[in-house]
């Protein structure tokens, strides 16, 4: 009962924190598009959190570079649980053309699973995904939570 209430409240007000682990900035622009008046994600209670401590959903863009690996794991540890992670864009989902890059540590889901094997991770592919696709991905991820 209490757990159901917790899950319900989490779906009603997911605060997001934006982590760029090596994206080309294209997906980041699309994420910012979601926050503009045209798409207005505050309708669903989605707010951009200033700190990972406040966040419920980490929006990760880009494949993880070797330099960003430790930072991503630290940010994931700093996020108050329960939390979810949304991999946005083709690079964050599958690394795409950076798969064999000498400077890459792997896709974000693999890097985060080193810290927490049970992490809840959803994927929004696209290069970049449209804001509509990101909102749909967020809604589906929250539905599956």
């Amino acid at each position, binding site marked *: 009962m*209490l757990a159901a209430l917790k899950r319900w*409240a*989490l779906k*009603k007000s997911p605060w997001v924190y934006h982590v760029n682990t090596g994206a080309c900035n294209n997906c980041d622009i699309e994420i910012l598009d979601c926050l503009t008046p045209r798409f*207005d994600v*505050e*309708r669903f*209670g989605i707010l951009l959190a200033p700190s990972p*401590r406040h966040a419920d959903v980490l929006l990760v863009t880009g494949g993880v570079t070797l330099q960003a690996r430790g930072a991503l794991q630290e940010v994931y540890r700093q996020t*108050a649980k329960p939390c979810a992670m949304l991999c946005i864009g083709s690079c964050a989902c599958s690394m795409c053309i950076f798969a064999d890059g000498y400077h890459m540590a792997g896709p974000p889901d693999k890097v985060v699973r080193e810290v927490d094997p049970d992490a809840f991770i959803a994927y929004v592919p696209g290069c970049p995904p449209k804001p509509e696709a990101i909102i749909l991905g967020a809604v589906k991820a929250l539905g599956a939570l």
Partner: protein
Amino acid sequence: MDLAWIVGVFVVAVLGTAVAGLVSKWIDRKVTARVQWRTGPPLLQPLYDILKLLGKETLVPRQARRAGFLLAPVIGFAAACVAAALLWAANIDPSRTLPGDLILVWYLLMVPSVALIIGGASSANPHAVIGASREMKLMLAYELPMLLAVLTSVVASGFTFNLGGLIQSAGAGVAGKITMAVGFIIGVLCTQAKLGLVPFDMAEAETEIQGGVYVEYSGPPLALWLLTRAMMFALMPIFLVTVFWGGFAGGAAGVATGALKYVLVVVLLVLIRNTNPRLRIDQAMRFFWYGLTPIAVVAVILAAAVF
């Protein structure tokens, strides 16, 4: 002052203020959204936020002062509750208030800001420490003109230091004085700073110090901070309406006009918040000390000279 009256007023005031605060927060977000040509969140959104945060994990940074960090939101919340009880008691029955409760409420309304400084400073985060230092400077800046503005009302109503007396004398024509209007406007501007709303939100400044004093808070302590802020967002307009504008007294009609005044003050605060950029801390201090304080001093003197 029997026990039933005290406990009853306390419970009603705390619940009522929490509800009013959450609704005001929604008005804030909705009006902001409409100003930005958006739809905005549903009515219960502030409640969802608090319920969600209550269900989350509490993280305490390793180097933080644990007791201060976790006690600060409780102290702030407790002070807001007691201030709510005193303000509501004065409005429910103006003839039965404590002598000198204006001074008590004044100090209690200051406590959440002090608790915020304690919490921010003990969280071992450089952003939070910068935020705490700015909050402290901001307090020094706005408390002086705010005190003078309140003093205008006190002087205009013949040195009455209890809220009930202020409500009664405002009803007897004091609220129509020019000096009271000046005091009220200064009070609204200082309230803007006390609530940390946009031109004076340098203590949390999401875009530069990542939420400042709140940066390390998560889960239930953050929920308590949000609730305290929501309650202060209701209490400060109630305080202004009580001190300068006759409060809510006078039966059903009084409550209705009081509610109208309250909503007017809240929307005014929200519109100021939406049409101004954030100031630097030194600009804010200059504005309060050199801008508002002389006007407030003149208002007090004129209030003594019957204007």
